[in-house]
């Protein structure tokens, strides 16, 4: 279906936002604004140590304070069966409870919750709960986690490796790298970031009237409702989740986490409404964080600067309880996606530590663009070629497409090279170089940074919760339009942009459309704001649902007026028949008939004007961009000032350019924070050292320049031609700025490998000093030395082991696209293994070898790409662990239990 896109009466217009009227006058409704009769307040007792055993909890004094209603610990909540879930809505490998049970795993781990008449009293009492701990030595950094021999963070695990994909080395690629005319390598580290939405987390929960009503600061009320139904084993119909206004999220609030679940559980147990509003100390120190990573790249270039091969070694700190145990495979998927990289291998691993868990943050894979673009500038310097020319030689252009990346992603319409051209029309590089030389002669250090990238948006494959979005639209009997969408705004302005799309498609006024997306009981499932998806997936659903209504109104009008449907048009809420002005009817008149006089409708037509469309966008819709930034670095103080920032972005058809630019600017400000200021730091004992906004520095207006925008607007293949734009600024911003700083510091031979580039670190770079952090991160050789030994070959089988192997197994494969559940049937016959794997993708038989309880087999699959999967599984009692080699996709973990 090709829904009509009009001439852009609303789409493409910088309309003021509907949301702003209430938000500017203090009449929004944020979670902490909700007050319910009889509501009590929660404060958490949190662990002051990073790792240890809980010896005792004494709540007698605290419980005696007037106004204190209850003090609950993990054992109190245990009467409810609660399954904490990860982002994929699957039960994680490691045991995670709402409250600490027996052990604490990070400073801030919630140990008990106090419920009192107000928050002041709750905090008084929390301070009186006496907890005795047997403290243990914590694992804080990735290098701590890699150390073999240390007690793993989680009991019952063999190591701190949370997830792993890929191979340590690939012989073919090593040979190419060894023979390459130019080998460029560098190890980068990225600090830990606090997402820091201005509204921290919060929840109000009440179980009343047979319904669990939850007000929660989140990214999608629908997703939260589904999460809670599954986590608590309640029928979804009894759960209602409401989130009207949300003060930012940036990935943090993608799923409800331990504290929110604890509050909801406690509310059920106590039978009264409860409120918890996270304060800033809690948000900085006990919410999940993001971005603490290290990445070593080795890239071979030919004599002309064309890339030959690359190996990447990547690690990410998962903390103790990540929102999903993660090796962040997206880093590898997109590292070279926009460039011609003939051969690529990698090892990507996630590590558990005694720190707050890993959460999402705008562009969770962003380090790929940061490290690639910074390394390309280093390569240009090393090879002696202009950095822009180096990019031109390697970027995928329109002429190269369609093509498939090494990791199997099909590219059809990416435009980073074209964005770079547009950028360079606005930025006169030659003039800048002259200015830079003149400034240097006066002892001033200017720098120009350029970066290019593509961004996957609105992915609809692999991660089931992100596959589709729904629009339910009614033209009411009054002629007004009500739209209930599975989009959700935490500042995105979807109440405005979706109304623009609907008004445009229906042919009604913008003010005639009301958009609702704040209540899970109103509409159908969708993941809300996630993966830069709302314009594409929500917009597509809105267009198609609107188109159904246009068709129905047209048929009704044609029937009523005895006109040819081809001549019926809806414009500004009026239904016209071309050339016959007296036949014009208001939409309201048609709607009144559609609802109230069904006899006048075409025979057999369903009365009413209500439509629903669930839209699945294309597998991935790519946005492309190239940015440039000019800085001046004060070499006396190490202070960086940003002089100019130009962005050439191609995010397809823009619904509201002001909203698009707002998304880019917000991401860029966060990029500036990450490069220059923000650092959620921990000391060696796992204590957070940046627990206030006086220590954790966020960018202020004085840190962020005016941004200039150039929009390319290549229509996408998605309905409406839209492309996502939510995360891009935070992805391309960091390398643009780092490259500018490195360019300014090039007379000092500085390599900018670690962020943040604080004034003191910049002074270190100028002085040629190595920062303390650097001593740990050595080159690839040291990486190898610290790698855990390969798993020991299984011991000789105690035979017969048939009983231990044969039968049905429930298995989970940790694929790059998220966990995939399978059922395995094994049957052994001597050394021969026969079996069948059953998953949502289909069933397949296989044959392999068994040696005791060690199983090995291979099977060919053709979807999504044709590869051979090599399974290597060890059975131990009722548990099964192992890995599967998946060709180019590297290696994935397999776990399972007897069914």
């Amino acid at each position, binding site marked *: 279906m090709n829904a009509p896109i009009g001439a852009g009466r609303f789409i493409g217009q910088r309309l003021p936002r509907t949301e702003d009227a209430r938000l500017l006058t*203090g009449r929004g409704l*944020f979670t902490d604004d909700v007050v319910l009769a009889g509501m009590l307040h929660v404060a958490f007792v949190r662990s002051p140590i990073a790792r240890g055993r809980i010896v005792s909890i004494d709540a007698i004094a605290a419980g005696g304070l007037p106004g204190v209603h209850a003090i609950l610990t993990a054992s109190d909540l245990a009467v409810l069966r609660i399954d904490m879930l990860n982002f994929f809505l699957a039960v994680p490998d490691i045991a995670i409870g709402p409250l600490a049970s027996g052990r604490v795993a990070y400073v801030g781990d919630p140990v008990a919750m106090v419920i009192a008449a107000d928050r002041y009293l709750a905090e008084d009492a929390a301070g009186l709960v006496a907890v005795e701990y047997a403290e243990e030595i914590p694992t804080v950094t990735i290098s701590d986690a890699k150390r073999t021999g240390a007690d793993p963070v989680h009991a019952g695990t063999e190591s701190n490796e949370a997830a792993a994909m890929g191979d340590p080395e690939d012989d073919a690629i090593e040979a190419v790298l060894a023979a390459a005319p130019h080998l460029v390598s560098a190890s980068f580290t990225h600090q830990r970031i606090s997402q820091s939405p201005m509204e921290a987390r919060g929840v109000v929960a009440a179980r009343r009237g047979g319904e669990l009503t939850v007000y929660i600061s989140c990214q999608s009320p629908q997703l939260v409702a589904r999460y809670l139904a599954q986590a608590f084993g309640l029928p979804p119909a009894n759960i209602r989740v409401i989130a009207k206004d949300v003060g930012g999220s940036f990935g943090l609030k993608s799923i409800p986490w331990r504290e929110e679940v604890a509050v909801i559980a406690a509310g059920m147990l106590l039978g009264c409404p409860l409120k918890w509003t996270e304060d800033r100390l809690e948000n900085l120190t006990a919410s999940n964080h993001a971005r603490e990573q290290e990445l070593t790249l080795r890239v071979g270039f030919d004599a002309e600067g064309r890339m030959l091969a690359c190996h990447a070694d990547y690690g990410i700190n998962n903390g103790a309880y990540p929102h999903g145990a993660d090796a962040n495979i997206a880093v590898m998927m997109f590292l070279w996606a926009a460039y011609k990289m003939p051969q690529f291998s990698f090892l990507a691993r996630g590590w558990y530590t005694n720190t707050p868990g890993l959460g999402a943050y705008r562009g969770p894979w962003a380090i790929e663009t940061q490290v690639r673009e910074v390394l390309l500038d280093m390569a240009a310097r090393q090879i002696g070629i202009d950095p822009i020319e180096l990019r031109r030689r390697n970027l995928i252009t329109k002429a190269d497409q369609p093509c498939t990346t090494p990791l199997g992603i099909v590219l059809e319409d990416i435009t980073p090279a074209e964005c770079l051209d547009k950028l360079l029309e606005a930025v006169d590089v030659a003039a800048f170089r002259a200015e830079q030389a003149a400034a240097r002669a006066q002892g001033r250090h200017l720098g120009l940074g350029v970066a290019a990238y593509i961004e996957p948006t609105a992915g609809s494959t692999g991660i089931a919760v992100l596959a589709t979005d729904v629009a339910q639209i009614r033209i009411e009997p009054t002629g007004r339009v009500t739209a209930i969408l599975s989009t959700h705004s935490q500042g995105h302005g979807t109440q405005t942009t979706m109304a623009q799309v609907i008004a445009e498609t229906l042919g009604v006024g913008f003010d005639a459309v009301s958009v609702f997306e704040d209540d899970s009981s109103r509409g159908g499932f969708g993941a809300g704001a996630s993966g830069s998806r709302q314009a594409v997936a929500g917009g597509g659903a809105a267009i198609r649902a609107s188109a159904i209504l246009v068709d129905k109104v047209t048929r009704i009008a044609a029937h009523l007026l005895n006109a040819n449907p081809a001549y019926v048009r809806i414009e500004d809420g009026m239904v016209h028949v071309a050339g016959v002005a007296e036949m014009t009817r208001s939409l309201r008149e048609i709607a009144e008939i559609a609802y109230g006089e069904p006899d006048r409708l075409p025979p057999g037509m369903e009365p009413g004007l209500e439509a629903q469309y669930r839209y699945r966008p294309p597998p991935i819709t790519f946005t492309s961009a190239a940015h440039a930034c000019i800085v001046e670095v004060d070499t006396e103080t190490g202070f960086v000032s940003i002089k100019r920032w130009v962005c050439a972005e191609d995010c397809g058809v823009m619904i509201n350019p002001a909203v698009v630019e707002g998304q880019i600017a917000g991401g860029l400000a966060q990029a500036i924070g990450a490069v220059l200021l923000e650092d959620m730091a921990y000391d060696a004992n796992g204590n957070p050292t940046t627990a206030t906004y006086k220590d954790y520095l966020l960018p202020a207006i004085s840190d962020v320049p005016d*941004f200039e925008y150039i929009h390319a607007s290549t229509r996408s293949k998605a309905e409406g031609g839209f492309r996502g734009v939510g995360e891009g600024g935070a992805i391309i911003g960091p390398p643009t700025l780092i490259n500018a700083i490195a360019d300014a510091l090039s007379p000092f031979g500085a390599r900018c490998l670690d962020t943040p580039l604080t004034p003191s670190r910049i002074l270190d770079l100028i002085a040629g000093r190595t920062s303390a952090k650097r001593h740990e991160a050595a080159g690839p050789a040291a990486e190898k030395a610290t790698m855990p030994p390969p798993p020991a070959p299984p011991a000789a089988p105690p035979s017969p082991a048939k009983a231990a192997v044969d039968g049905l197994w429930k298995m989970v494969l940790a694929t790059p696209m998220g966990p995939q559940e399978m059922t395995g049937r094994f049957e052994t016959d001597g050394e021969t293994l026969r079996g069948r794997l059953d998953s949502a993708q289909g069933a397949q038989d296989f044959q392999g070898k068994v040696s005791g309880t060690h199983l090995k087999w291979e099977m060919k699959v053709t979807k999504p790409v044709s590869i051979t999967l090599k399974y290597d599984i060890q059975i131990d009692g009722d548990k099964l662990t192992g890995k599967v080699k998946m060709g180019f996709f590297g290696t994935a973990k397999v776990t399972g239990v007897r069914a």
Partner: protein
Amino acid sequence: MSEHHIAVTINGRLHQATVEGRQVLGDFLRVTAGLTGLHLGCEHGVCGACTIIVDGKAVRACLMLAAQADGTSITTVEGLAAPDGTLHPVQQALRDAHGLQCGFCTPGIVMTLAALMQAPAPATEETLLAAMSGHICRCTGYQGIRRAIRALTARPPGEPA
């Protein structure tokens, strides 16, 4: 715990209450007076979200006790627009300039700008920008806020601010 009887004029109406000595003004306004337009983003004086106008001056409601407000006249963001709903020039400028996204920081920004734009001596662009460096907005990258400030201070001379 000490208790204090206070009488405060909030948005033109007199409120009388007995408050605990330790109650923060921001909590008093949000919880007791029900004025939830004021937001608490950090509760330690950095983010500016809680800014209100006390006796004509922009004040951080998280750094003042309710008891200290006795006898003062307070304006919160709810009291800024005209009774007929017409937005205050600062609110209108922010709306026109797409100066907000989630809107959590916005009430504080509105109140600081409104305090500094008061007659008879409305502030200059530089003063407003300098004042804004005491407000954190995590969403917008400050672009629309800066545009709004330019619009507010670019009025031809002679026109009311």
